[in-house]
């Protein structure tokens, strides 16, 4: 995408990365949730982030599109670093809101609780961002939306309202909403945690198909078997720090940290 990289500051390491996070800290009041996390996702990487509850996985993910503003650290997307400035109290805040909005529009996020807009149909949910944020024409957006909804198996639900869909269908529609913006990278925040067990499979198989297309994604998940299967890189977060990371065979097959060993044996 030509519009990214315009502001690249020449950091050669960053240029290849779709997402680059450096020394990320996040503090909520007196509680430090992230204590210096660094992470890189190159195009085509599927990074699975695992860890116990309260380990900071979701917070880290939400920092990538600045739903949470980090306390300190540096985040760049496709080589373009977010323009953040330090406030008087020493925290960071967004300096260039339009830059953040422009980048966000190309980073699709899939939420644990779907967060579809219930006052729009499935088609309306998927065309909303292309038409009203990216400025795509209605016809083109409709055509693209129909194609991505077909892909996630909802081609017959274009005019349904979100409230009429099952949880699995809602989450697939939410994935279609992300695909419609042709994202640089997709952020998944525990996409199957709110689903009934029998609906998890249909969502995972959609995500798996996207991973096989070599789409860049960061996936916060509790589905260990899935992470092992799909991820190219696994990150284990413990108390706000990356305790161990590496290819899935290593993380799941031969974990070296005792915490990770214990975590894996407790969830599998």
């Amino acid at each position, binding site marked *: 995408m030509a519009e990214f990289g315009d502001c690249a500051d020449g950091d050669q390491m960053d240029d290849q990365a779709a997402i680059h996070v450096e020394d990320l800290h996040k503090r909520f009041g007196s509680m430090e949730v992230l204590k210096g996390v660094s992470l890189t996702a190159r195009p085509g990487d599927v990074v699975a982030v695992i860890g116990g509850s309260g380990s900071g996985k979701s917070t880290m993910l939400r920092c990538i*599109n600045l*739903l949470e503003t980090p306390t300190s650290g540096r985040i760049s997307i496709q080589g373009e670093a977010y323009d953040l400035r330090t406030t008087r109290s020493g925290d960071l805040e967004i300096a260039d*809101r339009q830059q*953040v*909005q*422009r*980048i*966000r*529009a*190309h*980073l*699709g*996020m899939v*939420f644990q*609780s*779907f*967060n*579809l*807009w*219930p*006052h729009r149909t499935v088609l309306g949910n998927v065309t*909303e*961002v292309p038409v*009203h*944020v990216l400025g795509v024409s209605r016809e083109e957006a409709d055509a693209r939306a129909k194609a991505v909804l077909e892909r996630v198996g909802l081609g017959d*639900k274009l005019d*349904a*309202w*979100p*409230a*009429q*869909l*099952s*949880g699995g*269908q*809602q989450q697939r529609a939410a994935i279609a*909403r992300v695909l419609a*913006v042709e994202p640089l990278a997709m952020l998944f925040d525990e996409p199957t945690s*709110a689903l*009934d067990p029998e*609906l998890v499979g249909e969502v995972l198989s959609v995500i798996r198909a996207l991973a096989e297309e070599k789409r860049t994604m960061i996936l916060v998940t509790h589905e260990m078997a899935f992470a092992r299967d799909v991820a190219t890189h696994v990150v284990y977060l413990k108390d706000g720090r990356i305790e161990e990371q590496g290819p899935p065979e290593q993380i799941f097959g031969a974990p070296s940290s005792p915490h990770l060993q214990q975590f894996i044996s407790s969830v599998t």
Partner: protein
Amino acid sequence: MPDIDIATPLAPASAKTMLHGLRGFFLPHRIAMALIALAALAAMIAYMDWSWLPAYLPRLWSGLGMTMIMLVASVGIGFLFALPLGLAQVAGPWPLRWMSLGFCTVVRGTPLLLQMWLFYFGLGSLFAQFPEIRESWAWPYLRQAWPYGLIALTVSFAAYEGEVMRGAFAGVPAGELEAARAFGMSRGKTFRRVWFPRALHRALPTLAGEIILQLKSTPLVATITVTDLYAVITRVRQSTFLTYEPLLFLVAVYLCLSGALTIFLRWMENRIPSGG
């Protein structure tokens, strides 16, 4: 989340069934009650004195027009004020939040009749003391009664609906707004595309009830010499010495108006099935 099988239609709300299911409507007890009502109506038409009606018809029409103007204008303008009043209490800086909270509390805590009299007898006579106002373009309006009635009704509606919209704005699930943010919508766009329509939809059932209440508040303007429908009927009673016929006529008209409003607003609500 509700896991509704798409093969079965949405569980119909009872109100919806009443409107749509014609077969469900004609139940024995309903038929009996409808027959009794029809008989009562027929008896009223046959045995009561309606000879005054044709002569007063033009005035009744204009009274009805005034009632409708008061209702529609105060609801429309009042709602425009209710939006910032509600939004300020949910998301405004503290001075605005306290000001709108104070406004809503004062207006909701005092009788509408009192407010109307304060506007009409208070403001009305105050304005008359300033030559600048008396010579301005607005004076031809300000020397009449209806602007004060409209202002009082509008202020009252704004205050009540400000409170309703406060609750509605606060009640939109944070995740829906977060999704808008995560997809790069600006604050204004998030408000226009998600927050406001969602809040409005959630507020509609309450708003529908409040609009009916507002309709029934409009006769208060008759106390400050505005000739709405109620004022015309009062005139009829004074000049014909009839008591029940004009009042029953008034009952019928208000019932029809509130019935039509209810049906219209429920239709709006039902256009979007909502799970949350």
